[in-house]
């Protein structure tokens, strides 16, 4: 039988160490909503989402109440809209109507984000893909809860540099259209290489075409729990350090597994995957950077940071895979700057640069995330940063992503403020040398060879 120490250990994690289940995300296929008539497509989308997800929020709250663990977000991801709108959208504004339908559905069912305003263009863009991409700035500026993602490359297909070039412009335009909110639109726009089909974490979530009609994915978090566990082994060697992270990751993932099973049973929707990511929030004590510092770095960004993050990421996965029957998504450690108070402190102290973050993305779970850059950064420079990050993903066979926020009218030394889970961020300097001739060449970077590894 469960004993008093185990009960208080769990409750301490929840009450004192910010442990929570970060999200229950219901993936919903919209493939059966495709229609050649735009109004009809919008009607079918609305009907499908409302019928599948109407009880998502209440069920999430019910489970949270019974287990006594917070389930912070309830969200929905849908099939990439470029596919769903391809038969009926003839202008970017046609796609914007679908974004508004999604936003409206999100508000009706009470979820805070809906993901899947997406296109998968790693090898090339269809006419619909291009229309959707061109509609992104307006779609994100005129909706509140819609998240967009574009996959522009993969290890098996290479990098679509036309799309990379275009996304530089789109990121800038989105920042300009949402300039009065510090470029908030860009916080809802992710550019991926090797995007997984089944990721419950926004802003990059979408429901893959390989998935069943609906699925329940759960994202667990808990950087604060890992940090507190490591405080107990401050002078221990790497073996003890790694074992401690693994055991902690196991425990928190088990709760995610329980929540996923319960949600799946109560909603009558199959369980997809657990994403066992350490996802920070701006709350004090809920930081991945704090874990790195607890390991013995003065600040995140100091020499040794990449090694520390690599071991953290790997041990989280090792501990988590046994705790869940199906692991997927982005699993590992997220390093968003604006959403992590420790990262913000490191940037403000001058310890952390975009270049160091780029190195860290080789071993973290995703990529350059929630980084505010000067408002006068050129679109081609943004494309260059995207291209670098995509290349890391392509060559290393991992998911990488870019979520940059050009802060219009602001420069290095200023900060941007999004509030809530998205946090605030000091603007980081960007390398001023030009890459426009490189990124404007057009075409694709071919897929890499998988032999001769060095």
């Amino acid at each position, binding site marked *: 039988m469960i004993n008093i120490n185990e009960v208080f*250990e769990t409750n301490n994690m929840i009450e004192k160490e910010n442990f929570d289940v970060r999200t229950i995300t219901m993936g919903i296929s919209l493939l059966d909503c495709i229609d050649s008539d735009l109004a009809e497509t919008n009607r079918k989308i609305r009907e499908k989402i409302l019928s599948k997800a109407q009880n998502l929020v209440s069920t999430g709250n019910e489970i949270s109440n*019974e287990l006594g663990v917070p389930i912070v977000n309830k969200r929905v991801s849908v099939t990439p809209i470029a596919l769903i709108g391809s038969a009926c959208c003839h202008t970017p504004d046609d796609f914007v109507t679908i974004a508004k339908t999604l936003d409206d559905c999100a508000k009706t069912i009470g979820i805070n984000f809906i993901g899947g305003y997406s296109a998968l263009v790693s090898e090339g863009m269809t006419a619909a893909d291009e229309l959707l991409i061109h509609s992104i700035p307006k779609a994100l500026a005129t909706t509140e809860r819609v998240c967009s993602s574009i996959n522009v490359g993969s290890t098996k297909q290479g990098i679509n540099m036309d799309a990379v070039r275009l996304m530089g412009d789109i990121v800038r335009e989105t920042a300009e259209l949402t300039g009065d909110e510090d470029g908030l639109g860009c916080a809802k726009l992710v550019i991926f290489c090797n995007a997984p089909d089944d990721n419950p974490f926004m802003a990059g979530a979408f429901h893959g075409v390989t998935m069943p009609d609906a699925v329940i994915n759960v994202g667990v978090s808990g950087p604060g729990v890992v940090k507190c566990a490591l405080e107990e082994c401050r002078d221990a060697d790497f073996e003890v350090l790694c074992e401690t992270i693994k055991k902690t990751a196991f425990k928190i993932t088990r709760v995610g597994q*329980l929540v996923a099973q319960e949600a799946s049973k109560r909603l009558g929707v199959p369980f997809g995957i657990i994403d066992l990511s350490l996802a920070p929030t701006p709350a004090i004590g809920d930081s991945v950077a704090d874990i790195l510092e607890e390991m013995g770095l003065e600040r995140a960004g100091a020499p040794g940071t990449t090694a520390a993050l690599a071991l953290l990421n790997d041990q989280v996965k090792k501990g988590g895979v046994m705790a869940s029957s199906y692991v997927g998504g982005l699993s590992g450690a997220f390093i968003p700057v604006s959403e992590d108070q420790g990262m913000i402190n490191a940037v403000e102290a001058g310890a952390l640069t975009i270049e160091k973050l780029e190195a860290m993305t080789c071993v973290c779970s995703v990529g350059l995330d929630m980084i505010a850059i000067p408002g006068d950064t050129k679109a081609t420079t943004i494309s260059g940063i995207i291209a670098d990050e995509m290349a890391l993903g392509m060559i290393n066979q991992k998911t990488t992503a870019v979520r940059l926020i050009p802060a219009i009218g602001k420069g290095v030394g200023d900060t941007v403020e999004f509030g809530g889970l998205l946090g605030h961020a000091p603007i980081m300097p960007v390398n001023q040398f030009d890459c426009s001739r490189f990124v404007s060449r057009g075409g694709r970077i071919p897929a890499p060879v998988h032999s001769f590894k060095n």
Partner: protein
Amino acid sequence: MKRTIITVVGKDTVGIIAKVCTYLADNNMNILDISQTITGGFFNMMMIVDVSASGKAFADVKSDLEELGKGIGVSIHVQSEEIFDMMHRI
């Protein structure tokens, strides 16, 4: 059998266990295990309770006990046993 874990944390005072147990008895809930310690004047108690014979909804039991806790100056949590089983047992 649906088992529920009740935890009580707070400043030690006379009659905490009595009040909680009275509520459980009144609502036909059977106590299977009790552990209790006092550290630094703070009262910590954990009970494993079988609630299956009680007709009460989980949410009602939870809010009743939270209210009862407020009345005696302690914090009472009611949780399904599953979360602890999942986390601490393979």
